[in-house]
């Protein structure tokens, strides 16, 4: 916001002090390297505050002048010192009071300056005392002429010629309380970038009238203060996690991946676990890890022949597998849960794909998953899983690593390496690590693998079709991107709305 000077102030400046302001500007123009406000005040015979006022008014108009505040030490006569400068020193006045015939000491002491003047004049040997006279001691001149140096010195100081006096003399006069040292603040004034000796009234803003009449051409406009902040716009905001989700969607779409319908939070254990060849006694299917439903507790419809094949591959093996060899129960598969991963949807999609003539597909999804886990600063009971799946003839591990490289490059991550890992439904499985330049170490950024034949073949996919997949959480990259340490500040009702208001746009690769 530009500094505002009221119309009243402007009028005051122009009318009351315009003489001073203009004279000041003329002085500045003539001076080579600037003028001191004190000197100007002294030479114009006005109070220093008047010049200070003129300086401030000119500063408010922009860069007409530039004024630097400086302070200087300065000697000034005391009241007694001024009296001496005017009438002479006490000792000189004593000398001149004494007629040729002398003066009784008692008479001299009656004068106001008598006492101090007498002793000084005595030590200067200007006078003598004759104590033999009748009627008491009498004072006589001892010399014909005197030079009143004290007065001379004080007159020099009064004229501002401090340099005529040496330090010793100044200190002596100070000791006699005739001089005092004062600090004076003044401005050193030089020409500003838009110096001019004439000032006109400045407009604050362009108005419709000025545009209509063309008067803006003659007007001067008050400069803006570009240091100040603007007025915040009235606006709505998108949530940071959703902004990152939009970017991940964009990346998948750029890579030709089709979005899966993941709008089914409630899933049967069958699609969430059994179809993925995750055995029924696997710890992930425990009450401690998964949310089970009491209502609706069970799922009822399954593709019956597919279910039989899943049962067989678990309990007896088949499709080149020994299976897990346990008593597979439909009752376990029926149990409804809150899905623990979006791979349940991938399983449904791959099953659907297997029911048609096979064509290669690329699928992705980003949606909520649920874990009945212990909560802490980085773990919630629900989070968003990002998942990519590619199904084609003869896909290799090299293809998986190649596509992960392309995917992560779009996130600005180019240094990747892969660690062997174990996932129940992929074989081989690889954890994806990227080199974190800030932490100077490799950090896990995702998990990946090739879906097991025991998952794909019962669905009815051709034997030579491989399916590669990878996943990561949406929250973790978002927390890193936006520098959030506690996940509750990002997700859920405890969100810090100020953080949402202040959030930048999301470009993952920069």
């Amino acid at each position, binding site marked *: 916001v530009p500094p505002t000077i009221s119309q009243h102030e402007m009028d005051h400046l122009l009318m009351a002090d315009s003489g001073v302001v203009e004279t000041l500007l003329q002085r500045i123009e003539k001076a080579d390297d600037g003028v001191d406000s004190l000197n100007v005040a002294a030479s114009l015979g006005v109070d220093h505050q008047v010049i200070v006022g003129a300086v401030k008014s000119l500063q408010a108009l922009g860069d007409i002048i530039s004024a630097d505040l400086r302070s200087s030490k300065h000697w000034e006569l005391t009241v007694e010192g001024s009296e001496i400068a005017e009438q002479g020193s006490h000792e000189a006045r004593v000398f001149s009071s004494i007629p040729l015939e002398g003066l009784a000491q008692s008479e001299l002491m009656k004068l106001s300056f008598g006492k101090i003047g007498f002793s000084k004049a005595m030590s200067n040997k200007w006078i003598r005392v004759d104590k033999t006279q009748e009627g008491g001691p009498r004072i006589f001149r001892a010399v014909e002429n005197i030079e009143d140096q004290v007065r001379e010195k004080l007159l020099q100081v009064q004229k501002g010629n401090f340099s005529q006096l040496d330090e010793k003399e100044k200190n002596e006069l100070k000791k006699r309380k005739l001089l005092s040292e004062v600090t004076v603040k003044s401005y050193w004034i030089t020409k500003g970038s838009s110096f001019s000796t004439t000032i006109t009234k400045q407009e604050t803003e362009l108005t419709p009238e000025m545009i209509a009449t063309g008067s803006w051409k003659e007007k001067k406009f008050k400069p803006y203060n570009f240091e100040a902040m603007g007025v915040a716009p009235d606006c709505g905001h998108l949530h940071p996690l959703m902004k990152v989700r939009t970017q991940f969607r964009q990346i998948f779409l750029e890579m030709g991946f089709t979005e899966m319908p993941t709008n089914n939070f409630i*899933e049967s254990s069958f699609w969430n676990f059994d179809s993925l060849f995750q055995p029924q006694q696997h710890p992930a299917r425990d009450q401690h890890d998964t949310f089970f439903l009491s209502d609706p507790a069970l799922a009822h419809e399954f593709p019956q022949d597919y279910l039989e094949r899943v049962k067989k591959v678990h309990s007896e093996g088949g499709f080149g597998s020994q299976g897990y060899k346990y008593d597979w129960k439909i009752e376990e598969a029926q149990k409804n849960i809150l899905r623990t991963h979006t791979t349940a949807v991938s399983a449904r999609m791959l099953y659907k794909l297997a029911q048609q003539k096979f064509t290669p597909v690329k699928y992705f999804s980003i949606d909520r998953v649920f874990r009945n886990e212990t909560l802490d600063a980085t773990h919630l009971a629900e989070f968003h899983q990002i998942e990519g799946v590619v199904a084609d003839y003869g896909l290799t591990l090299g293809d998986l690593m190649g596509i992960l490289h392309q995917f992560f490059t779009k996130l600005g991550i180019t240094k990747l390496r892969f660690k062997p890992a174990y996932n129940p439904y992929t074989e081989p499985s690889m954890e994806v690590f990227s080199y974190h330049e800030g932490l100077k170490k490799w950090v896990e950024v995702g998990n990946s693998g090739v879906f097991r034949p025991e998952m794909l073949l019962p669905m009815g996919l051709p034997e030579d079709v491989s399916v590669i997949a990878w996943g990561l959480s949406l929250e973790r990259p978002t927390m890193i991107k936006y520098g959030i340490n506690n996940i509750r500040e990002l997700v859920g009702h405890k969100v810090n709305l100020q953080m949402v208001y202040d959030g930048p746009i999301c470009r993952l690769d920069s």
Partner: protein
Amino acid sequence: MPTVGIKRDLLFKALGRTYTDEEFDELCFEFGLELDEITSEKEIVSREQGDTKASDASDVILYKIDVPANRYDLLCLEGLVRGLQVFKNKLEAPRYRRISPVNGDPQKLIITKETAAVRPFAVAAVLRNITFTQERYDSFIELQEKLHQNICRKRSLVAIGTHDLDTISGPFTYTAKPPGDISFKPLNQTKEYTATELMSLYKTDSHLRHYLHIIEDKPVYPIIYDSNGIVLSMPPIINGDHSKITLQTKNVFIECTATDLTKAKIVLDMMVTMFSEYCSQPFTVEEAEVPLLASHTLSSLFYVESTEKIAQLLTRMCLLSRATGVGDEIEVEIPPTRSDVIHACDIMEDAAIAYGFNNITRTTPRAYTVANQFPLNKLTELLRQDLAAAGFTEALNFALCSEEDIADKLGKKISETRAAHISNPKTAEFQVARTTLLPGLLKTIAANRKMPLPLKLFEVSDVVLKDETKDVGARNSRRFCAVYYNKSPGFEVIHGLLDRTMQLLEVKSARGEGYHIQAADDSTFFPGRCAEIIVRGKTVGRLGVLHPDVINRFELTMPCSAMEIDIEPFL
């Protein structure tokens, strides 16, 4: 993922060389392990129980290593060293052999039919002429504990008992009896207890009390006797004191009782293969069932020059292999330690690990595919942008909440909602899936009361409703909800947002084919300040000024108006 703590110096001694922490970390990474932490017993005790308790603890350096959940053969020093040494070509993969006793018949374990009611399976084996040291003994105990915690599912699936064979005599009987009829001196106790007494004795035992529930409610408890009636163990709770293992033990009898036979075999194999190393005839075990797998034809997951090369790679992973010369067929011998190998793909993974994942050339799938957005998500994305442009700020709330949030606090009965209920929530926050977005937005406002007014929030997200027409009996419904919170209710603001939304969705303000609102009664809203939103003749949602009771229950102080609609009809 299980973590194994191994003394660093013992590990290096067994590996025959020392490593820097970085070098060892690198080796782990290549092999599929993770060096999780470098610590000491002292540090662990000090962290968990304070410095004073730690003063007596050992400060020998421990490596905490994360082992993949299916690799039970890497859960002890012996197995880990064996795997790494073979991987580094420093050791040939051992070939485990099943042998018969030098003299006499094999040991027998007779299972009686009573066990069917509680724990029906058992397998057993003998390790002959083993030499224990303190370290080997500790590792032996530690491995049992790791197996119990992992594959044995806290002893519920399998329980291991180990005994000094020279203190007992076979044949052994595995049976089940009522707890009152069982009496013996349990491990590290001085007198006999009945099983009933033991169960109450161990109620307060910090370790054993976790296993009591496995048999507690059964009419009979599992029990193993020798031919003289000496109790070996009462699985899965405790062994007898009589047959306990000591450093002097030469012959070890190992039994595994189980509710899952396959797992019992795996566990027994693991115990005997790991410690057969210390037998006078290394890698031999007496009368155990050791399964051997047939050969597999390998599908090509990555390019390797020749089948011979693959066979070499596999041999480095303890899978003795040879190319048969028939096509690309390789014959692979699966040792009993590798219960995780159930398909050719498991073998290929090991070949890939031995080759080095990071040595595989990266390629790109060639399939040409056209991307499609899921229409509901596309609509959601577009709508969200314009709702933010309309001055509302997006919130993001949990899909799970308490029953109170969606019922009592909104002035409704839980039975009126079509909520899906969770059977095992750890806290009230996870009792139900939300049926409306409104409570989440009101809680967001409550948590942000310090922010300047007005607060204008929205969310476009899924709720869950029971729906019998779906296979799982429930479905998601995509909703748009918005709230306005200020010193005045601002019904007109929310109404204006509805009008703008309809404009964005190309629905005109009109009865019939357009949209209109009409007064409705709803206990969430202030009487006379609620309307139904009707689009093309169907109700899609409501808007209005919230009831003061609702405002109070969400710990708010200002008037508030809100709207919520189903957006799926606009697809």
